[in-house]
């Protein structure tokens, strides 16, 4: 009996900290539209190896992760004086596991989605989008924040 209690106590302690240090989400690369011309819509595909935004997510095999983006609708001009509309289509996000057998999954970054990790415990999420400068858009640098929230189960 005493041995069983010890086992349970150990198991309880172990279960209390399974996510800490194992589950994480990290921003790796900014979504960079680069040079944008007034009046010309500019698109970055989620598959763009340089310009697309990129996150790294790690959890546990066979567990679930719910991912949800908080996406801006406008980028703000650095120093003030303008907003640059930004939008994301239903195919502007791609999740790709790190295992050789993982296939990319295209999804809509505008709605939350839950993944079950069956091939690898970690994966990347790439994000594309488009900006639509007005014909009289103020020149200069614009930026906005993209947040990825992962809920680990």
């Amino acid at each position, binding site marked *: 009996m005493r041995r069983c209690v010890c086992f349970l106590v150990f198991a309880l302690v172990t279960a209390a900290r399974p996510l800490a240090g194992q589950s994480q989400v990290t921003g790796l690369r900014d979504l960079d539209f680069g040079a944008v*011309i007034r009046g010309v819509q500019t698109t970055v595909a989620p598959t763009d190896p340089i310009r697309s935004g990129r996150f790294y997510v790690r959890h546990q095999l066979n567990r679930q992760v719910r991912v949800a983006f908080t996406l801006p609708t406008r980028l703000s001009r650095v120093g003030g004086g303008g907003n640059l509309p930004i939008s994301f289509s239903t195919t502007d996000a791609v999740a790709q596991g790190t295992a050789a057998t993982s296939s990319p999954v295209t999804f809509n970054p505008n709605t939350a989605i839950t993944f079950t990790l069956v091939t690898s415990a970690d994966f990347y999420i790439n994000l594309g989008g488009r900006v639509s400068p007005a014909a009289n858009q103020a020149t*200069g640098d614009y930026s906005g924040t993209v947040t990825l929230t992962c809920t680990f189960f």
Partner: protein
Amino acid sequence: MPRQLALAVLLLAGLAGRSAAQGVVVAPHAVYLDHRTRSGAITLYNPGADPAEVTISTFYGYPVTDSAGHFMLQVPDSVDPSMPSATGWIDAFPRKMTIPPLTRQTVRLLARPPQGLLDGEYWSRISISALGGAVPVTGADTGRIAIGLTLEVRTIIPLIYRKGALTTGIAVSNLRATPRGDSLIARVHLERRGTAAFVGMARGTLLNTAGGPVATFQQPVAVYYDADPAFELPVRGLAPGSYRLRLELDTDRTDIAPELLLRTATVRDSVEVVLP
């Protein structure tokens, strides 16, 4: 009787629904390179429905004004070492390309300045030439006659290369104004100071005797050496009499990134004007 031969002749661009000499969109409209990075880029965009063949070249030139006060591009017949030319050591990659319809293309600019280049500002012009392809003829009797036209559009933008700590400034003198029809033509002598071109804005305001503005103009200016530009203010409907023309030159340009502008104090002058 002369032989009747209908020729349908179409020139230049723009069949209905098709832009044949579309050119390409070029951004930025002025390139600034710094000696520390020695590189930059221009973005080209083909807004047309057909591919555009594009060629990039460089040459030395700088703005001056003609006798009428218009800005013109001065292109020396030859470039000698005393001229602040960057043309010989600026490369563009790629130099030739075909840009598909509705597609952007980045052209990298790389500077390989000579050893021991002195601090200062060096200039060049970038020529972006876009070939839009042949325009097929339409019209009557095309069975035996056809015309194919090759259409080319060239866009020339300035390139400024900077090394070291540079300053700019502008001196204003001989401000005068002359009525001409419905306009008031202001002329002024501008003398560049410092070690770099003055890139800024000229703003004029015509004030009535009460000090109220009745006409204005503003125009981007680039003064590399000296210039005697003419500026035009609309004065139609203004009552005859005395006015005061106030001219300001500053370096507030919204079309150029703030970190690329060389700042200097605003310069002002004014002159009395009589409208007939």
